[in-house]
């Protein structure tokens, strides 16, 4: 199933937080490769290091030691602004709490990454409107988040993640704030994105959600406990 081109290649990375005199290992010598077109779930209980790993994969944070290559670029060597550029172009984030700008319309929210990438206003509007339509919100472009249901908000957030046509979509507990029916609809959307060839990484502690992925990576105490393909996937 997996395509041979690796997008994410991490080798022996560790993340250490210093709490006073104590060193806390959030990740211990973790190595992982994710290729283009994969549908991966990162699982683990809280404190397992999955959030740290997700921040690392999303270029929000850098490892204390080890090597991280993203699309062939060495992330360790990048400064804050170069990381911001990678996040802008290559990574689409979907958060548990949606994290939309409350006073901006759905369209403006989806446009925002394109503002930071410097796209012209006309092209931006068009692209954002198309992307909103692709997640089924063509009629909701002028609505503000508080005028939308939870599921619609998460669709706006997904459209915002997709609008730059990133290399990976990184979703952190994307159904955590939704009822189960709406959650299933959102997961159906991720499945659809995967079928269209997108690389999707889910971070979750729910088995039901993880089951949608084709590969499940389980973490515990900062280590990868298991890394298996998921036969029962959608």
């Amino acid at each position, binding site marked *: 199933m997996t395509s041979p081109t690796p997008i994410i290649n991490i080798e022996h990375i560790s993340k250490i937080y210093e709490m006073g005199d104590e060193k806390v290992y959030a990740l211990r010598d973790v190595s992982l490769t994710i290729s283009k077109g994969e549908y991966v779930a990162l699982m683990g209980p809280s404190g397992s290091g999955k959030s740290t790993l997700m921040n690392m994969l999303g270029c*929000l944070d850098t490892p204390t030691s080890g090597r991280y290559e993203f699309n062939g670029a060495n992330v360790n060597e990048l400064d804050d*602004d170069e990381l911001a550029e990678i996040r*802008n172009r290559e990574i689409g*984030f979907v958060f548990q709490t949606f994290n939309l700008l409350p*006073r901006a319309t759905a369209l403006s929210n989806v446009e*925002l990454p394109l503002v930071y990438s410097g796209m012209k206003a006309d092209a931006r509007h068009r692209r954002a409107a198309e992307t909103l339509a692709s997640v089924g919100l063509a009629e909701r472009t002028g609505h503000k988040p508080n005028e939308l249901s939870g599921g619609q908000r998460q669709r706006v957030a997904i459209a915002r993640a997709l609008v730059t046509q990133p290399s990976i979509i990184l979703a952190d507990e994307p159904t955590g704030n939704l009822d189960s029916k709406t959650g299933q609809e959102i997961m159906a959307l991720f499945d659809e994105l995967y079928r269209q060839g997108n690389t999707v990484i889910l971070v979750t502690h729910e088995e039901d959600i993880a089951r949608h992925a084709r590969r499940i990576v389980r973490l515990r105490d900062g280590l990868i406990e298991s890394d298996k393909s998921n036969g029962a996937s959608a």
Partner: protein
Amino acid sequence: MIRSGEIIESFRIAIESVRVNLMRSILTTAGVVVGVVLVVLMGWTIKGLDAVWEQTISIIGKDMIYVDKWNWTGGGNWRLMEARKDITLAQVEQYIDRAEAPELCMPTVRSWGANVVVGNQSLRCSAMGVTYEYGMTPAGEIADGRFFNQIEDEQAADVVVIGHNIAKTLFPGGNALGKTLKIQQRPLRIVGVVEKRGFLFMDFIDNQVFVPLLTFRTLYGFQGRSFSIAIKAGNEAMLSVVRDEAVGLMREIRNVPPSRDDDFSINEMKAFDAQAANIRLYIWIVGIGLTVLSFIVGSIGIMNIMFVSVTERTKEIGVRKAIGAKRRSIAVQFLVESTLLCLTGALVAFPISQILVGSTQWLAVHVFDFEAASVVSPFIPLDLLGIAAAVAVVVGLAAGLVPALKAAMLNPVEALRFE
């Protein structure tokens, strides 16, 4: 490079943020409002003084030079000037004979402590002995009646021309012409009233009476008095020629050896500019002090509210960073917001300043009877608005800098975790 899209986005966010917290924004900018009002008031006051001053010296005559024993503007050593020999009428006449450059020149003599009596009312003023030609200078321009003529001048007639304030005080009804007043017990017929000449700083000019030179001699005598020469250059371009000629001739007439300084002073209306400049400087110093103070207070307020804003929007900053905002973009966003806050303050300040300026001018003219203020515009000049707005922008940028940097340097992981 900052992209135009980001700037527009920043303005959109900033306007939204100021609008949502409108009351808080206006209160926050109180210091800036006071600062802007002060800048505008100070600028307007200085411009007003300049206008009044310009009016004053143009009324009295920009092309007038006075050769006198004394330096009128208070420059030079007082004791040295006191030791100078008086300028005699003979010396003045020699100068008048020989001078070629001026359009007009004439002797004048003065008694500072004259007592003018009308009925049982008396008024202290200064009496000037002048020739009929004085009526051809701007200082002798007549509002009512006429200046005395050459015949009255030569015959030492008992006539007098009085200043604006004298007429106003002694003849409040305005019927001074043809009346008689007494100086040194001698009745003199009023033939003319001089136009109001005194403006700011020059009020004494309206508290003068003019009599023919020879009449002055019979009233006060010439003994022990130093004459001065009133010289009308004709135009401003001729001033330096006339001045140089006057210096040369007077040195010759008064036998000043080449090694010695002039033993007389050349007084020009322009010399008073230095005094006007001093007053302007004091206003600047006081005004700048107050302005800087209020802007410091104002920028502390802005900085404080910007820190609050950064904290309130930590999560938003995290989201923006996650989707690709660079540090620069975040910093610009908050700088635009603090600048917009200050501009809001300036916008609030402009109508306040206009009301203050307009009512000050109106009160000065209509209630305090300060006529000089009538040449001052009751409106704020546009360039002052521009300067005040520019200052507000600078204050906004300065006050927003530290909060903006704080926002820009936030760690995205921690910012996203913030609730």
